[in-house]
Structures are given as structure tokens and as C-alpha cells.
């Protein structure tokens, strides 16, 4: 399949399409190999990784909500050493861009993780400073511009890989966060992470989720995500990877028009494991029908205040 209109180059990474998968919803990619041509994705943002293994939260971890879901997995993962020794070598066979999502409880931990992951086979590093489901670290870095900037500086000091900072929507001013991490040297921002939410079981008189609160995702968060991408695109010049409730090509187009240079699909992978391929096909059709020859032509097209980041296009 030729994806001439969809191919792009972001952060020095050649991408066949600007459609990625969001961390935590797509495992390590291999779980979806029967349904998705993994090499056609712009990248796979793999399950959040920490220095040491984490067992995650106890009790109920997910619940469906109107047009979405809440989760409180709690960053269960086998640790970075296991990822480097076993997972990364195993998933090389799929020819996909592997973007590793990392979480730490101190800025130094982010630096250490970024250093350990500065290895062949890793395309970029995504800093998760906004996981709402872990008690230590995470959310603090995600809501304080200075703390987020410190995490970026620490990561940048330890790796030559592009560093993407994943922004939390659980802030009053997402623009201030984006500006702070851009100034600290972040190569890109991805947004949004999940919105903090909860649900109560009215028959058992207690919260549904084991962790009480969880992260809201799915189609219900899309308008919030589009608005935040729009605002951030007016404030920073680094590329934006837009995500939050994307479940169709039409949804993805909104993010590009708001100013995202690429998009990531999350929760919709649960509804339809083939959804990313359908979104790629639909994006291509949209571009063709509107007379565009590349995805770059629609980045920020609906946003008059868009600062004008252009993907580095190298059509082959």
C-alpha cells in the first residue's frame, strides 16, 4: 500500500503515516499484530515504563462511562531492564517506530530512564508527567510548569533521542505548561493524557474503581483535547502529537486542523483493534477529496493563531 499523501517526518523519524498509538492502550504493539500493520503506524508509544517493576493498582481497574471509560491501571510494568533485555529485541521484527513512555518519581529518575533508553531501536522518548493513577511523582510534574521543565532538562541531558512531553489536561493553564517545557528543550509535546474522574456504584455505596479515581478517556474527552491542541498550537513552535478520543479519520482531521502534526489513537483500539488502519485509509481519502497532496497542508489550517510548525517533509 502506498501512503504517499500520509508519509511525514517528525523529530527526524520517518513515518509512513502520521497515525500513532497512545501509551497504555496498545501494549507493546505485538498484541495487535493480527489486526494492524505495525510498520504503517507513525509509531507505537509503548506501555509506560519505570525504573523498577510496578504491580499497578488493586481492585477494579476499568469501567465504561458514557462515550468513554475510566481506568486506574497504575503503571503496571515489568521495569526498564526487562523492557531492554526482552521486549525491545522481540518487537524489532515488526519494523515499527518504538516510542518509549517513561515515568519516574523524581526528575533524576527520568534522566536515568532516558539514559538507559538511549539505545538503537528506540525512536523517541515520551515523558509521562501526567499519570493520574500513581500516588508519587507523576501528577505533580504534570501540573507545575517548573517541575515539568526540570524533568525535560534532566531527560534531555541523558539522551540524544527526541524527547516528547505528554501534557496533562488536569491543569488550569495548559499553555503555561507547554511554554515551560518548550523552553526547557522538549522536542515535542503530546496531548492530552486522561482527565481525572470517578464513578460511584450506587448499589454498593462506594466508588467503582479500586483506586477510587481514574483517568477518563474515549470520545467524551475529544472536545477538550481539540481545544487544548488549538491553544497550545498558538503558543509553541515545537510539534504537537494530538490525542484524546480519536475514533475516526474525521476526529483525527480535527486535531490536524487545530495544529497537531501527528495524532495518536488510544481508547478506540479497545473498541476496534483495526481502527488505526481505518483511520489511515480515511485520512488519505479526506486529503484526496479535498485536493491536498500531503498531510502537512492541513496542519493548523483551521487555526488562525497557529505559530506555524511544519513537519520536515522528505517525500521519497
Amino acid at each position, binding site marked *: 500500500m502506498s501512503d504517499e499523501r500520509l508519509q511525514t517526518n517528525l523529530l527526524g523519524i520517518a513515518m509512513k503515516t502520521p497515525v500513532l498509538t497512545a501509551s497504555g492502550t*496498545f501494549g507493546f504493539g505485538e498484541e495487535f499484530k*493480527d489486526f494492524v*500493520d505495525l510498520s504503517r503506524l507513525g509509531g507505537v508509544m509503548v506501555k509506560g515504563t519505570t525504573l523498577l517493576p510496578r504491580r499497578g493498582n488493586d481492585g477494579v481497574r476499568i469501567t465504561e462511562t458514557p462515550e468513554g*471509560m475510566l*481506568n486506574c491501571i497504575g503503571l*503496571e510494568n515489568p521495569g526498564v531492564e526487562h523492557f531492554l533485555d526482552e521486549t525491545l529485541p522481540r518487537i524489532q521484527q515488526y519494523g515499527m517506530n518504538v516510542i518509549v513512555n517513561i515515568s519516574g518519581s523524581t526528575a533524576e529518575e527520568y534522566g536515568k530512564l532516558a539514559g538507559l533508553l538511549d539505545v538503537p531501536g528506540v525512536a523517541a522518548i515520551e515523558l509521562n508527567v501526567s499519570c493520574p493513577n500513581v500516588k508519587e511523582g507523576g501528577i505533580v510534574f504534570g501540573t507545575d510548569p517548573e517541575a515539568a521543565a526540570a524533568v525535560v532538562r534532566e531527560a534531555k541531558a541523558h539522551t540524544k533521542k527526541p524527547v516528547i512531553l505528554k501534557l496533562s489536561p488536569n491543569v488550569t493553564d495548559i499553555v503555561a505548561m507547554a511554554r515551560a517545557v518548550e523552553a526547557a528543550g522538549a522536542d515535542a509535546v503530546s496531548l492530552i493524557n486522561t482527565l481525572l474522574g470517578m464513578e460511584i456504584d450506587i448499589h454498593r455505596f462506594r466508588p467503582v474503581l479500586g483506586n477510587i479515581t481514574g483517568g477518563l478517556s474515549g470520545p467524551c474527552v475529544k472536545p477538550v483535547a481539540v481545544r487544548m491542541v488549538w491553544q497550545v498550537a498558538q503558543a509553541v513552535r515545537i510539534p504537537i502529537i494530538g490525542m484524546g478520543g480519536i475514533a475516526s479519520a474525521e476526529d483525527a482531521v480535527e486535531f490536524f486542523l487545530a495544529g497537531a502534526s501527528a495524532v495518536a489513537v488510544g*481508547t478506540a483500539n*479497545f473498541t476496534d483493534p483495526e481502527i488505526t488502519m481505518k483511520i489511515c485509509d480515511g485520512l488519505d481519502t479526506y486529503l484526496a477529496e479535498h485536493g491536498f497532496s500531503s498531510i502537512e497542508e492541513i496542519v493548523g489550517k483551521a487555526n488562525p493563531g497557529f505559530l506555524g510548525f511544519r513537519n520536515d517533509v522528505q517525500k521519497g
Partner: protein
Amino acid sequence: MTLPNHPEKIVRDAKVLAQQELATNVYFLVVESPEIARRAKAGQFVQLRILSGAFTLRRPVGVAAVDEKKGSIAFIYRVVGKGTKALAQLMPGEMVNVLGPLGHGFAMAYKHPLIVGGGMGLSPLLYYAAAMQGKADVLMGGKTAEELFWSGLFDDLCGHCFLTTDDGSRGTKGFTTTVLPEILERGDYDVVVTCGPEVMMRGVAKIAREHGIPCEVSLEKRMACGLGACLSCSIDTTDGQRKKVCKDGPVFPAEEVFA
């Protein structure tokens, strides 16, 4: 990389062939899916996506029967929420999206299994009983005689059918675990295969262990992807590890999950 020529799992719209209410709020659903019928092993499950209504998550349901000749698979489910309510409204000719087969099924190499089931746990065991071709006996428990409509489904597939009810309205009064020790002592079972409420399965596993008979349990957990990616269905194993019900299970050796 492209897509595999012979994928283990598939996702397709499947036509509803039949839908029948077996008991109050319990339905038998048959759908056309030759590819899954060919692949599904006893104990595996599928994730159903209900196309009417805006459901973000699929609904995991065990495969209860397979007809390879007709290319159909069947499920038995209870209406417990919005998703299963919408599922129950599907009419023959309408479509539902099926993802599967998922997970690992029961070990098939045994000669004389005893199936122990309660409630909706009997659903995947029905396919196991059929796959065992008359070699298995079944012990089933319910609150009342009405809940034991299952015996009509298992009768033709199993040698013996032992019944218990909490209120004594049918079979022996008590739980499956009340009569299990005696059944194991009198029979020559080489495995116990169980699915149902966790408290029942724990009791069954303990009695099987006391009798030196291997036991396989089929677990149920809330799931999102069903593919081992999202980690919604993580459980603790007895050796201190985490496993995923959807991918490592849903069938586990009892000693791996029950201390």
C-alpha cells in the same frame, strides 16, 4: 511488515442466526462466524462489540458451543447491564462484531474429567463437555431448581449429571462443594475443571488438591482490549507474579492462582 496470512485472531461482523431466552434474563445467542468456529478451543472466549448504541468497550463472553459444519458459534449470557441488555435485543439477521478467539482454553488430554460449574460459569464448560465427547461428568450447583436449566443442555454431553441447589428444590441440598468430596472418592476422575463464582472455585480447587487431582479454573475479570495490552484484567499469581486473565488465561492451573 504487513498483516499475517493466517492470523490467530480475527475481528469480523457476524450475523445473528438465533437468539433465545433460556431462563429469566439468560440468553442463548448463535452467530455466524466460520473463521472463529474453526479456531475456537474449549475455554476460549470472544469480545463482542454491540454495534447499536455507543459502547466504548466490548463485552467478553465465553464460547458455549461451536458448530464447525454450520460455521456458527454460540454464547450463553445473563443480562446484567446496558451492554448485555442491548445484546439481548438483537434479532436474527442483525449483526454483532466478534473479536476472537481469545485466551487459552482447557487442557484436552484427560480421560475422565469432572466438570464443576455454577451460574454463568457453566457456559464455557458446555463447550468443554461437548469437546470431551461423553468422557466428562458434570456437577452443577444453583440457588434454586430454576437456575439448573443447564442440566438439560449438559445431559446429552456428559456421562453423569450431579445437581445441587441451595434450597434443596432440586438435587442435593447444599453447594457443589458439599457433595464434591464424595463424588471424587467414588469416581476415577483424572482432572477437575471448574468455572463459576470465585468462592466456589476456591472451594473446588481445595477439595481437588486434597484428593490429589489436578484442577483447572476459568477466571472472569473486567477487560478492555482482550489482547493482553491494557492490563485491566491483571491478577496475582501464587508465585507473586502478575498475569493477565485475557491472555495468560482465562483458564489457569488452580495452584497458579489460588493459594
